[in-house]
């Protein structure tokens, strides 16, 4: 019998595996097209892509000494589901599909569904976060679209990056001196004790995964961005301010409390070659954003947010802290012990924010099918953890909060979205002279 190929589990694979204690390790994407996807072509592209990226058809093996991946045999049906659904049932089908969790022992580490309703396809995909993060998920989807388009046009060449998955690519842009400094950033930045939490009902076995969504319409988002542009701040800064402001209100935090939330940072900014370099993997760090009390309005909170994020933005090692500490722990200790040690030292943030960014409708179009709507979101968080994820597409902003909860939690998240919308509206009203 042929011996199965083993793949080394990289630092981030192990870290994401550890995160199973806090969330479901899945990354999600839903893309709505204005026509039907050609399934045989999609299957060809999926097989070609999966073959080129072995970790996508591997099972993860936990080991006390050093965990590893084992490359598995699979068929395309293990990955792709195609279903005809009614327009009314579409959203429920999407929710059911994206809230499932792929076990690490599975033969494949990503799943895709094409849900056809009313002559239009919706492409849903979930992937094990241990394989790659949101940054590479966007890259994967863009490559999937371009490979699909090539296949349709009769040139079935699968183009996808297949290089190293090693974490240390994040030092490639630094010069020798900075690299030496970066490799000694042993500071544990997760150790920021912030006990503010998002008010959800107590944990219960009947809780189920849910991806709560809310949209900021095109007109509102355009005004919002325009005001941001006037003040010279990014959408990320603005949303962070609105999010913080809303959290104080929704969570009834005392106005003078200091609240710290981490904001995810794509570490590919430090990699020579950016998203095209290396292989599909995780390169995500985070920067801490602390506000010392909430402002009287969003503008004031924005100033407080800026005071915090400016420090991170000026730091050329942004997001690179703690990596040497993790590397050290995984190098000198057997895996089982290192996991315990890291678990003791790591404080998972109770509240977070991840700006996944813009989905490019041109790069994601499938042979003339337009991407009319869509979003991406991170893992489904277990109580008491929560994260707000943001994606923008065609000038609209989609906010998602993926949690395990019940109907009351869904209602609470809905109310929180309402507060965010109100704060965005107030912000636009307050700065209307710059919105036109």
């Amino acid at each position: 019998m042929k011996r199965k190929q083993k793949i080394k589990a990289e630092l981030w694979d192990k870290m994401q595996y550890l995160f199973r204690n806090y969330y479901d390790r899945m990354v999600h994407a839903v893309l709505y097209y204005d026509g039907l996807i050609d399934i045989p072509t999609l299957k060809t592209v999926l097989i070609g892509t999966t073959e080129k990226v072995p970790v996508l058809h591997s099972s993860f093996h936990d080991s006390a000494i050093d965990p590893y991946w084992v490359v598995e045999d699979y068929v395309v049906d293990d990955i792709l589901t195609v279903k005809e659904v009614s327009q009314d049932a579409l959203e429920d089908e999407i929710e059911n599909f994206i809230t499932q969790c792929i076990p690490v022992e599975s033969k494949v580490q990503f799943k895709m569904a094409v849900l056809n309703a009313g002559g239009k396809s919706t492409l849903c995909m979930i992937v094990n976060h241990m394989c790659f993060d949101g940054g590479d998920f966007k890259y994967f989807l863009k490559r999937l679209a371009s490979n699909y388009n090539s296949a349709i046009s009769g040139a079935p060449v699968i183009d996808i990056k297949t290089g190293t998955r090693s974490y240390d690519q994040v030092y490639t842009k630094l010069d020798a001196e900075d690299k030496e400094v970066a490799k000694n950033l042993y500071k544990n930045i997760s150790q920021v004790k912030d006990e503010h939490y998002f008010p959800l009902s107590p944990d219960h076995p009947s809780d189920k995964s849910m991806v709560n969504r809310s949209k900021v319409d095109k007109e509102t988002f355009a005004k919002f961005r325009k005001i941001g542009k006037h003040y010279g701040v990014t959408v990320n800064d603005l949303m962070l301010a609105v999010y913080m402001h809303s959290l104080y209100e929704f969570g009834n935090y005392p106005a003078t409390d200091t609240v710290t939330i981490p904001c995810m940072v794509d570490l590919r900014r430090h990699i020579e070659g950016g998203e095209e370099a290396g292989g599909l993997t995780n390169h995500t760090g985070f920067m801490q954003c602390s506000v010392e009390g909430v402002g009287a309005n969003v503008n004031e909170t924005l100033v407080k947010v800026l005071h915090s994020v400016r420090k991170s933005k000026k730091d050329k090692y942004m997001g690179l802290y703690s990596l040497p500490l993790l590397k050290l722990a995984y190098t000198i200790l057997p895996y089982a012990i290192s996991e315990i040690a890291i678990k003791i030292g790591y404080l998972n943030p109770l509240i977070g924010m991840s700006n996944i960014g813009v989905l490019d409708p041109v790069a994601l179009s499938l042979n003339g099918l337009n991407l009319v709507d869509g979003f991406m979101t991170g893992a489904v968080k277990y109580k008491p953890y929560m994260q707000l994820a943001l994606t923008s597409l065609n000038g609209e902003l989609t906010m998602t909060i993926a949690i395990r909860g019940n109907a009351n939690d869904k209602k609470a998240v809905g109310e929180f979205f309402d507060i965010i919308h109100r704060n965005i509206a107030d912000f636009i009203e307050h700065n209307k002279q710059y919105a036109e």
Partner: protein
Amino acid sequence: MTERFKKYLEQEFRAIPPTKGAMEYRKATLVRLEEYAQDARIKGMTDEDAIYHLAIDSLGDFKSTLLKFNEDLNNRPKRNNRRLLITFAICFSIIAVIGTYLVVSLLHAVPWRTSWLILVGPAIASIIALLALNGIAIAKRKSYTIPRVFLAISIVLASTFVFLVLLMTTTLPYTWFTFLVMVLLIFAVDTTIAFLAKSKLAFLESQATLVVSSALIYVMLGIAHIMPWHPGWLLPALAAPVAVTALILMLVHRSNKKKGPKVKKAEIKPTTVDEKYYTEW
């Protein structure tokens, strides 16, 4: 607004020498001013003139800040990339010394009653090294009083250790002479430093060293029966008039020197201003 800030900073930074550090500080200050202006706008200010003046005011007494910055820049200690290595070396040395002490004592290679010197020696050497490093650092700033005190302390410590070693490991007579030599050494070394540092009291100190040294040498030679007490007493007795004569000659020489023609002061040429440096962003 940015151009106004730049112009202001280009002018202000002429108060300090054009260095790379000053350039970086200038750029950082521009960012600070821009951030201040951004905050003011977000808070609701619309009068750009008022924002400009408030931002400049936020820098406080910027002239003094600049001068202080320049002073700090000159005194900034160089980055020590070997700090970690030094820490490891120190830890390793401590472990090695304690290990050696225990091994040689437990194996009876050196008796317990003297082996403790293995601990005392490196301890004294470490203190002397610390005093030397700090002394050199202070001396670089042209301040010599503290380094001279450090040197005297080092000689006292080293002499004490030498005395202990001689006492515990040899049967030599007059081991206590170490302390007399110690005083002699302190005077000799301090006088040398006084001359090197061009101290005004160097000559006076050299004469004091002459008198004290001759007295100490007389005592040591007398006790050791190398030189008879009589007429050996002539040694310190002659040292005093020699010192007084030398002092008188030196004072006469100085007085003649003062009467000489005055040296013309060097003409101060105006230095050219590097416009490119001050306006580069």
